[in-house]
């Protein structure tokens, strides 16, 4: 019998809190009489000394005091970091034993572990961005392209190691629970990477059709994409329809409803698992992906049973409107860096002649995103904005119209309002035929460029 695997722990691991591991370990140890008051007091003292060091480091020794809120955040960061190291011990008793060492040394080991987690999460993020699913869902792209990148820019493991900075807006199929800081982000990125990998096995167009069948406005919804793709693939295999295209007809759904309604819960679970195994065989899942999807079987089974009784959400949806509205993946071009942009705006605002301003814009601006920003930030008159917009093609006007003419005008700044009024005036004065073409093109353009 392997000692490390089988040795029981005096502390029940299920009572420990993953996001407050250190304090929950001490609490349980104290309740069970495994640590003395003296030891607790020693650790409190050492924590306060670590906090005092942090406070001094934070204000460069310029201030003898810090705000309570700062102290509380620093302490949470210290305790989180210590907890990260303690989790390296599989047996909580061993983790408790490690606490006999000075906390300063444990904290330093925790910092090393946190750094490793940052590197790992960054690597997963880079891999994800290399092959991110093309989707109209704005939250999918904004979370993985912008928010997670921003997290790595602002994550401060010295003072706020326990923070996640609200960067995980896009919901996963299986939400990450009971973790904090970089541990949470690393687990979130790993799950997101696997969900994305699974979705890449299907065509973006088919996923678009499926998601639009669930909700036409899915592009703006905070909704998970992997879930419907997995459930539909599983449903297709159970119903014997075209799984590769993610197509479920009305008849197939009726068949699924009848079939599942006759099954016991355990049979549904078994059927779902069999379908997952078949998916794995067909696509050749690696162990990680297979493990992740297998772990989703329980939740998926629950959803399917609820659906079959009419109590749950629509797990299986008839795929409708295939290619009804062709989606244009509009490429707005790459934006210039902020320094270059600021310089350009300064230049434009210092020029008096309209023609010179327009020439400069034509020469320096190479993306629609930059153009709209320059027209808003460049202190231009409505005539100048109108002239600049007149040079654009129909598709670009459609893209701007889609973005701006559906905005809530009360949220716009004065300069944005001037821009919107000029855009509106330009479109309004076009021949009706062109206005209709712009409208149609706007409907076909995906949300992602916004």
């Amino acid at each position, binding site marked *: 019998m392997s000692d490390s695997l089988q040795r029981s722990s005096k502390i029940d691991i299920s009572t420990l809190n993953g996001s407050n591991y250190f304090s929950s370990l001490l609490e349980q140890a104290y*309740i069970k009489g495994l640590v003395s008051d003296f030891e*607790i007091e020693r650790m409190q003292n050492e924590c306060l000394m670590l906090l005092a060091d942090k406070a001094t480091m934070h204000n460069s020794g310029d*201030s003898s005091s810090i705000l309570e809120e700062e102290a509380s955040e620093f302490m949470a960061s210290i305790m989180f970091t210590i907890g990260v190291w303690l989790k390296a011990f599989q047996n909580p008793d061993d983790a408790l034993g490690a606490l006999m060492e000075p906390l300063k040394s444990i904290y330093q080991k925790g910092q090393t572990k946190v750094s490793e987690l940052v590197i790992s999460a960054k690597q997963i993020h880079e891999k994800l961005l290399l092959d991110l699913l093309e989707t109209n869902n704005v939250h999918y792209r904004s979370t993985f392209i912008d928010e997670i990148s921003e997290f790595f820019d602002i994550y401060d493991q010295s003072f706020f190691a326990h923070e996640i900075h609200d960067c995980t807006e896009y919901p996963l199929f299986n939400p990450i629970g009971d973790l904090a800081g970089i541990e949470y982000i690393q687990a979130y990125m790993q799950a997101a990477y696997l969900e994305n990998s699974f979705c890449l096995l299907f065509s973006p167009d088919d996923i678009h059709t499926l998601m639009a069948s669930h909700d036409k406005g899915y592009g703006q919804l905070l909704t998970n994409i992997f879930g419907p793709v997995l459930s539909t693939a599983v449903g297709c295999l159970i119903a014997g329809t075209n799984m590769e295209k993610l197509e479920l007809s009305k008849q197939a759904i009726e068949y699924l409803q009848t079939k599942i309604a006759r099954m016991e819960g355990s049979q549904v679970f078994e059927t779902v698992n069999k379908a997952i195994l078949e998916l794995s065989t067909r696509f050749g899942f690696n162990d990680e992906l297979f493990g992740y999807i297998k772990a989703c079987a329980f939740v998926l089974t629950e959803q399917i049973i609820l659906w079959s009784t009419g109590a749950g959400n629509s797990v299986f949806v008839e795929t409708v409107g295939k290619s009804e509205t062709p989606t244009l993946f509009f490429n707005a071009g790459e934006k210039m860096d902020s320094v270059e942009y600021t310089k350009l705006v300064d230049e434009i605002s210092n020029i008096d002649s309209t023609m010179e301003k327009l020439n400069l814009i034509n020469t320096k601006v190479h993306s629609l995103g930059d153009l709209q920003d320059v027209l808003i930030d460049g202190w231009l008159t409505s005539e100048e904005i109108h002239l600049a917009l007149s040079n654009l093609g129909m598709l670009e006007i459609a893209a701007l119209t889609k973005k701006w003419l559906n905005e809530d005008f009360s949220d716009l700044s004065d300069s944005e309002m001037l821009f919107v009024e000029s855009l509106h005036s330009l479109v309004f004065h076009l021949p009706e035929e062109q206005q209709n073409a712009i409208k149609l093109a706007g409907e076909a353009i995906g949300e992602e460029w916004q």
Partner: protein
Amino acid sequence: MGFELIPISPGILKQRAVSEVLQCNRYSSQYGLSLTQVQALELVQTRDDMLKAFGRIEFGTGILDSIIKEFCDSPYLSMQNYEQTLHDLVEIFYYYKNDTIGLMSDDELLKYMKNSYDNTCRGSLEMLSGSELHQLARNLRFGLSIDYSENGKLESGYEDYE
């Protein structure tokens, strides 16, 4: 049992602070100023109250020692007003430590307070708190020069402040 951020043995910490305040008597007595044990204890209590009131936590020796050493050579201090002035200065210091949103170090703020107290305010704590420091905090928050005044002129008399 909660493993929380609580100061250990507050009695011992307080005793240490009182002792540090009393040690300042050696320095301040050359200006004819000193505090008794009871007065020192009351001053430490005021500091604790102010830290709590302004939501701050202090590490190390704290600010009392610095306030006493900075102000004890002021021509506006005598044994009659020494104790009360120190209580008021502690309150003013922590108020403006928060109001200057961490843009000044302890030393910078104390030097500014001392300079204003001795010069512009001529020993008036009301003027120091209500006018000089109020203006300083506003200037810092708005990113203005620290001696910028509303009438557009730069105040003088802060030569010692760096």
